């Protein structure tokens, strides 16, 4: 992939995340815990050692520590052991079961969520490391009665069979479309290259992604009859 394209993406991501709004959110978190800036900002201790000063090494655990995560626009306080991954925190501590844990080692994409707008595999990140970032899960993208265009495109193209890989697929596609509103087939394939589907939905996923992109741009989806 040529470098300039990557740069372009970064630029778009930065622009899209209205900077002022981001700073505001960070300030809100800071004032809430009254500590230094993220990522160590979200921590409050279950066992009361004082929050380390900025720059000092931070020690968590081994017991559960209370941390604050920003998930789907809301601040959520949870007590987790430091070994708990973001995927486990979302599922077991926040009851957000849409994110699936399938391989638990970054090999399948089923646990894909958005971290500050970028797709990440939540099984490869500790919950504590997600402090100070904006996390969006499949539940934050849409609901059955108000689906995100990517979600409705998945339903229309039958880009889901057993459906277990689907939340991760949807998140990968949604992240692609937010940074590249007009992807070609190759870009779609690369965006979901890390999402494994045992039911073999890929062809319909590609179709859904292109249809959703067209719909979000307000043009006719590719291949649709007049």
């Amino acid at each position: 992939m040529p470098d300039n394209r990557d740069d372009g993406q970064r630029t778009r991501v930065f622009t899209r995340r209205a900077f002022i709004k981001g700073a505001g959110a960070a300030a809100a978190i800071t004032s809430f815990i009254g500590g230094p800036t993220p990522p160590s900002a979200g921590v409050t201790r279950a066992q009361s050692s004082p929050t380390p000063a900025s720059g000092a090494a931070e020690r968590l655990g081994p017991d559960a520590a209370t941390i604050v995560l920003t998930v789907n626009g809301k601040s959520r306080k949870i007590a987790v052991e430091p070994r708990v991954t973001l995927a486990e925190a979302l599922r077991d501590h926040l009851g957000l079961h849409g994110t699936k844990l399938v391989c638990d080692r970054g090999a399948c994409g089923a646990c894909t969520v958005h971290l500050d707008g970028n797709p990440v595999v939540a099984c490869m990140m500790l919950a504590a490391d997600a402090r100070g970032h904006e996390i969006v899960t499949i539940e934050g993208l849409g609901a059955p009665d108000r689906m995100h265009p990517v979600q409705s495109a998945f339903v229309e193209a039958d880009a889901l069979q057993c459906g277990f890989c689907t939340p991760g697929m949807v998140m990968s596609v949604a992240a692609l479309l937010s940074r590249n509103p007009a992807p070609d087939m190759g870009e779609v394939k690369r965006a979901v290259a890390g999402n494994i589907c045992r039911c073999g939905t890929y062809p319909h996923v590609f179709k859904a992604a292109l249809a959703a992109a067209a719909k979000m741009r307000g043009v006719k989806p590719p291949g649709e009859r007049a």
Partner: protein
Amino acid sequence: MARNVTVRLGFEGNISDVRLVIPDDEPTPWQWGEPLAVVGREMARVDGALKATGTAPYTYDVELPGMLYGAILRSPYPHARVRSVDLSAARRLRGVRAAIERGEAVVRFAGQEVAAVAAVSPAIANDALALIKVDYEPLPFVIDMEDAQKPSAPRVFAGRANIGAPAVFEAGNVRDGFERAAAIHQAVYTTPVQTHVSLETHGAVARWEGDQLTVWCSTQGIFTVRDDLAVLFNLPPDKVHVITAFLGGGFGSKFGAGPEVVIAAQLARAAGAPVKLMLPRAAEHVATGNRPNSWQQVKLGAGRDGQLVAIELLERGSGGIGGGAGSAGPYRTLYRCANIRTEERDIYTNAGPSSPMRAPGWPQGCFALELAMDELARKLKLDRLELRRRNNANPVRALEFELGAKVFNWHEKSRAPKALGHRRRGIGVAAAAWHGLGSAGPQAQAIAYRDGRVVIQIGTQDIGTGTRSILAMVAAEELGVPLRQVSAEIGDTRYLFSVPSGGSSTAPSNTPAVRQAAAHLKDKLLRIAAPMLGADPASLEARDGTIRVRGQPSRAVSFADVCRSIPADSLCAQGERPPNYAGFRTDQAGCQFAEVEVDVETGAVAVLNVTAVHDAGRIINPLTARSQVNGGVIMGIGFALFEERRLDPISGVMVNPTMDDYKLAGPLDTPEITALFVEVANGVTNTGVLGLGEAVHVATAAAIACAVYDAIGVPVRSLPITPDKVLAAVGKV
């Protein structure tokens, strides 16, 4: 109480009137050219939104108040005596609520269940496993199928040979056949152990309330799980309630109550709290089933005209400590031949047990037979498609070959140059067969409510094919109402009985029961409508959301108005799936064409496109049917090129029980897939639906292997066709 009906059955260019004897209360089977309003249309699946938004509740997502998490300790040895298990330290760990022994005196594969714990968090459960002390006495083991057949090999089961009894099929006399042959081809073909890799692993959530056991289970057979647990815990079946609202894949590995389900229920009872036990990925690879490997010595003989005169197969396959490895099905089915002999034997090894996997035995057999057919064609200097046509045993497949060749551009591609630099193009074709006819057993309930809604209830489950949608479509068709008015409720043993979802039986077993239930409900609604219309119920029909006098569309009353006149809260009828009728044909033909590109410098194989042509009887929903074709083909690509369970010869342990080391086909491996259906009105049931899930997987690996042979001129007779094998074949290594 039966009646005779005459129906038009068959397929394009081959239609005839067939007399069927059907039960009195059974709707007449849909026939050729039957005008249907809902069935046959592309419909988005009714539960799609739940899946796309992550709100569909899988077993994996069930959370109950006070729920504990279970974990299983597995043997690190492929064969060992379990001298003792000490659970005391594990029990003492803070947060542990129960610990149990499996109680096996001998373990026979690395990964077999030895003990289990339940704790307040998954992490503590895992910590507790490390505290269990097991005294093993390691025993000699054998994991290699060839080694296992040697007289000196360690016995997998004491007092039983590692080589199972032969299963022999014989027609005619192959020796005579080979004597008359103008060309003979003989070679050995092998396929690896493949694992199912359902994305949702095996597991269950178990809860006891007194002697009532409720189990949320990731299963393809809720009633099988119910019955297994009832026997194990000595309960009447109605004391066991099994729920599978959504299932994250099964592919044949999830029938019955496996060890993890039983253990979840045992732990829940021991702890006095609900227990959730979902397997980690490694255990899923190792212990929950697999497609056995195969060693196939194939011998084919043909006359100068290409007519097969003898087919012989000597087969060995190992499903570890399980059996059922046979792969002779295609040899006995795909081609017409007077002299056929197949011999299959299971070989036992110290490895995880096999379980049915998407068309058990068939992709293996099809790969070897079809690649052998190509090698025979080369000897005979015959076009490979032509050789298949001349021996083809099924008239539907003859049409499929023709259709597929046209769409795939077989003849044009045959003439295209093969080499482009270090890349070689090749094409292949393979025949498929299956028997997705379904069976008697399912019972459905159809309920109309006074607000005009119709609910179908049946104890089947959706393995991902869109079962709720097709059942609702069939009921909507019968009742003449739009699909949105009908919903289907499944996945619960409190509904009426249905069969497990395997053998491509879900659609063909359940749709006839649902159609019959809807027809009986319709009869009752017509009786309510008759006085409203001043007509005889027998003269009425349900169409376009109305109930009306046949032939007089203006004498109509709306379906909603009839429902409003239901005297009670609801109106209810049942249907039962009768055994299959003789029908038109009972086998299910298919074929697939594949084009590949082989890089002879790197050995990498890319599948460029696949054309899949299949008989699915009557297609209820072409959209979801195409999804199944994509799935079968893509899983076939994995089998052809990537997937292989590897066991370490020294420790007997699986070395790739992950999703990075065990490779599945991913988005970048996906070719252009064209699905074509040859509609066959088969009259086997009142809907004529055939299951599709397995038929569409049988021929893919074979077609790819044939295409690779065409591309590089050398057959790779061992799956998966990995770069090292390709480079060896072209003499580069």
